[in-house]
């Protein structure tokens, strides 16, 4: 019986396509898009306001990143898609964007939806204090990025158990970021050679265990890779000791890149 239904649907498909062609319908929507809940993203924005003291001079943006080798980032658009309306968002050349507050979008439980299929991109919060030295980030900014990312559920890992511990991300909230060594993945701007924490005279080069998604401790890392939203960003991925309060928020996270 099920096969009969499938055959019927298959027979109807060419007719449907021909109808679409005749009427010159331009379809811009993507089937199974890589969408996030608007409500969750607003919750992330509220977290940012509540904890803005971690990064008092930085604005909040959201960022889209490639999720697999086939992903093309050129021409990415993002819109708030609700039942009764859609609002396009402005995407900057670095693939960051802001999300406006909209009562109607909240009421209709809208989605924030790029023009890409699920599994092709991942998301992060982008909180950057302006005026920092080149190749550095500020630890307080990254602490807040983690909290917003966890609140808005921006990570896109597709297997509950990954690299041993990442499954915690699927269940935990922003408090996860207060652990001494949370495995919340950050991505540097270029492939990483080393990451150093600098606070006054105190310096600490992070162990390679905290780089590349912890691959140096996981012989099976290549098998897990397709399920991690770090799949094509592995050489830029790092963890930080976010919950180690001996490092103040003004600590600089300094990067040395592979090709520098």
């Amino acid at each position, binding site marked *: 019986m099920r096969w009969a239904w499938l055959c019927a649907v298959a027979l109807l498909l060419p007719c449907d396509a021909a109808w679409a062609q005749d009427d010159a319908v331009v379809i811009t929507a993507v089937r199974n898009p890589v969408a996030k809940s608007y409500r969750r993203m607003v919750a992330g924005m509220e977290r940012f306001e509540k904890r803005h003291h971690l990064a008092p001079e930085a604005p909040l943006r959201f960022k889209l990143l490639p999720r697999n080798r086939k992903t093309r980032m050129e021409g990415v658009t993002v819109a708030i898609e609700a039942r009764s309306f859609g609002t396009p968002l402005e995407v900057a050349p670095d693939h960051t964007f802001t999300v406006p507050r909209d009562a109607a979008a909240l009421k209709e439980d809208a989605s924030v939806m790029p023009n890409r299929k699920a599994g092709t991109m991942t998301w992060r919060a982008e909180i950057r204090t302006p005026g920092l030295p080149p190749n550095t980030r500020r630890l307080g900014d990254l602490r807040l990025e983690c909290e917003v990312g966890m609140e808005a559920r921006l990570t896109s890992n597709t297997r509950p158990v990954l690299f041993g511990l990442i499954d915690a991300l699927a269940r935990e909230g922003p408090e996860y970021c207060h652990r001494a060594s949370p495995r919340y993945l950050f991505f540097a701007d270029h492939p990483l*050679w080393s990451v150093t924490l600098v606070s006054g005279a105190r310096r600490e080069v992070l162990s390679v265990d905290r780089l590349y998604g912890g691959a*140096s401790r996981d012989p099976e890392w290549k098998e897990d890779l397709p399920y991690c939203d770090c799949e094509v960003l592995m*050489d830029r991925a790092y963890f930080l000791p976010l919950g180690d309060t001996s490092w103040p928020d003004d600590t600089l996270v300094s990067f040395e890149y*592979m090709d520098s």
Partner: protein
Amino acid sequence: MTRTVLAFAACVCLGACALPQRKTAQDAPLRPGEVLSAQAAKEVVAIGRSTKADVRAALGQAVLIDFDSGYEVWVYRERLTDKAAPPATELVLLFAPSGVLTKMRVTERSPA
């Protein structure tokens, strides 16, 4: 009686000789990615000259992380003593896509 005591003592001595000697962790052969001293290992390789084959011949198999870009990160960790807690002091090497060593560092073990 004396004969019995002597026989017992002889058995104990022979038994002790037959038991395998207990080795410490430091006596065991190095595992892949393990070195006795990261600093000493660093001295036997040279940035801009050493190839992957050179390093493998000198230090043995590393923990290897290879990327699509052609870069490879090789990691050697000092063997931990029985009482030391991880992380171990590590020697990290970066090979360019050409296969030549381009960067290296020793990261000392953080105090617990």
